[in-house]
């Protein structure tokens, strides 16, 4: 049974058949698209078309993608949870480069992402005589040490500093929005559960700083009665 079915069975109980209404928009075209489309979530037909166009086109060259991968692996090195490839970070760069290659995004793919590679490569050539991809990890770290601690919010900051900050931001975001990154982060949600307050061991940790007060908690939901249909007296006092 897939996850969706499980959730439905656990939580919906007696819900009527209307929830199973199939979309009336499915055409053969959509079905064909769905099969080659790995990203399965509610898209409008227009959105799907747009995404599909990008998924079937290419922005970066092979060596550019390898360069991004190399940078990303230094910004967030592999650990026991996985690596940059497991996190699909390079794939995300490739998609965003096209997704944001619009005037509204100020031609982000070309002017920011590709520009970044050009600038990093130039610096590597100046310093070490070869492009980033052919530099050693210690060499690249020498460069990153120079540009990664500068304040990138300053107006007149060097282009390389700003571009590195953008790359770092995208790498961190890409990693921590991936399956391995979310495990690494420790985020525990996005799953059906019954919230019944902060766990006791956590409350214990914050003792003396914050705590639940009884008067407040007494008004809160009694989760053992959440399935009982609500009834009230005329004054709005809950009876069930």
């Amino acid at each position, binding site marked *: 049974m897939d*996850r969706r079915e499980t*959730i439905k069975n656990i939580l*919906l109980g*007696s*819900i009527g058949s*209307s*929830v*199973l*209404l199939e979309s009336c928009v499915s055409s053969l075209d959509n079905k064909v698209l769905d099969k080659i489309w790995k*990203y*399965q*979530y*509610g898209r409008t037909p227009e*959105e799907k078309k747009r*995404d599909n166009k990008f998924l079937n086109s290419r922005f970066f060259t092979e060596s550019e993608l390898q360069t991004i991968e190399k940078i990303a692996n*230094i*910004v*967030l*090195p592999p650990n026991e949870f996985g690596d940059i490839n497991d996190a699909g970070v390079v794939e*995300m760069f490739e*998609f965003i480069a096209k*997704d*944001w290659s619009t005037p509204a995004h100020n031609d982000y793919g070309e002017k920011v992402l590709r520009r970044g590679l050009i600038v990093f490569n130039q610096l590597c050539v100046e310093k070490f005589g070869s492009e980033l991809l052919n530099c050693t990890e210690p060499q690249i770290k020498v460069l990153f040490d120079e540009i*990664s*601690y*500068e304040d990138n919010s300053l107006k007149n900051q060097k282009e390389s500093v700003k571009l590195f900050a953008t790359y*770092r*931001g995208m790498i*961190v*975001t890409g990693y921590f*929005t991936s399956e391995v*990154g*979310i495990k*690494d982060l420790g*985020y*525990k*949600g*996005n*799953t059906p559960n019954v919230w*019944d307050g*902060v766990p006791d061991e*956590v409350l214990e940790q*914050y003792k003396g*700083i*914050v*705590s*639940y007060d009884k008067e*407040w*908690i007494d008004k*809160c*939901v*009694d989760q053992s009665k*959440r*399935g*009982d*249909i*609500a009834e*009230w007296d005329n004054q*709005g006092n809950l009876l*069930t």
Partner: protein
Amino acid sequence: MEIINNSLKYDVIVVGSGAGGGMATKILSDAGLKIALVEAGPYFDPANPDQMTQMKWPWESPRRGSGTTRAFGDFHMSYGDWKVEGEPYTIEKDTSFRWWRSRMLGGRTNHWGRISLRFGPKDFKSKDYDGLGENWPISYEDIKPYYDKLDKLIGVFGTKENIFNEPDGFFLPPPKPRLHELFYIKGARKSGVTVIPSRLSILTKRINNTRGVCFYCGQCDRSCSAYADFSSSSCYVIPSLKGGLVDLYTNSMVSEVKTDKNGRATGVSYINKENGREYSIKGKVVVLAASACSSARILLNSKSKAHPNGLGNSSNLIGKYLHDTTGTGRSVFIPDLINRKTYNEDGVGGMHVYSPWWLDNKKLDFPRGYHIEIDRSFAMPQYGFGYNPNELNRFFGLKVGGYGDKLRQDVKKYYGSIIGLSGRGEAIPRKDNYCEIDSNTKDKWGIPVLKFRYKWSDYEMKQVKHMHDTFEELAYNMGGIALGNKPTKEQNYGISAPGEIIHEVGTTRMGDDSYNSVVNKYERLHDVDNVYVVDGGPFVSQADKNPTWTIMALSWRTSEHIIDQLKKQNI
């Protein structure tokens, strides 16, 4: 172009399927009336797996949930945002307005925050307190029975607090506060700011046998597949369709209300977005619920001999008194919350606690109040997570920036340590804030578009300035630090652009006097006895309370009035 006429005559044509239109459709069809429900967007069912975004992970989106096609992110459940392809609007020079439209069954109720606050007795009579704006022609007592019925029908959690202007209702029990909300409670109490459990239309307890109970994924903005939050699609329209009395027209963009030679409405015409052709439907009564600005647009575009400047516009007030909620926000860093033990703290989709307005304006330099909302700190990462990952290091004299495992550790260290505070306040409606028809611009369907003219006044500026003062005091008393600088006068104290809070109302305001208002106290046009407006348009003022609960209570009341009038054969 040839107009394709539908020979069927409906009892009522409802335009728009959001909060007001869905409510009217339910009440009118439950009473046995034959309804045409006309919606500009496609069919949408939160439970349809093909349309669903709930319970998806960020990596299931190739852009990791970023907001390229949906302003609030890829998983947010609104088809359309401040921009709708092919449907532009224009803005008067040196003014601003951002107009959100959700083109789908259920409209904006699929994505909203479910904050379900009743207006209080003061909110209907604000002019009596400060001499500004206008009073409503109805009082809290007139609408209270409908709020009561709404609470029981839809379900809203909250607590009885006996605060005069924050009336209690028939509440489901609220969820327990999250950890960061305990910090907020502590800070608010120290600051003398009232803090109580929030009031959201999310089912913490079963309310009937057709809707599910909240399973705490915190994703109401994606619309709940178990129908455990309120959406007009899931709670009104989809159940009403089963009754057999409602014909739903989707992808149908109403362009105008048709009238006979006496100026009475005979029906509506609409563009079928699938073939671009114009159709018309006939009805005894027309109920507009297309959203405040869309309904104003339809009326202004419905010109005839009897109504030369737009239907129901003898007062010239349609589009005037447009007003949105004021808003500003601040992030607060809580050092006590670094290196948190992680656990599932998603909770409901929204805050578990909030602050209703707590001060007396007599002692302040601005009129009307605001409430404070508290954002989640421990949410599921989406695109944007981890930019400037260790900027907070500066508070500890540590290096900011860098890369490698140290950076990774910093991201994890600060995860969940920032709380967002937002103020949401009441603006004073003004005649010179308005929307009107821009006769030079048409949308892709050939319908003349709206032009907006909107400026905040000194009242609103001073109010949001006060919000930031409060945020800083709260931050301090929470043991935290308000991040960033307090916005200056030159930055308009950080006030959101008009329309950004997505509570625009007032364009067809209600009143007893036909010279000074557009609809009467039953939301019927003064000029025409068979056209009603049941969205935010009739609002005379909007308190600092989110408008949905009041839109629906009014729509229910109006629907009962329509049933009564049809029974008496008055319309």
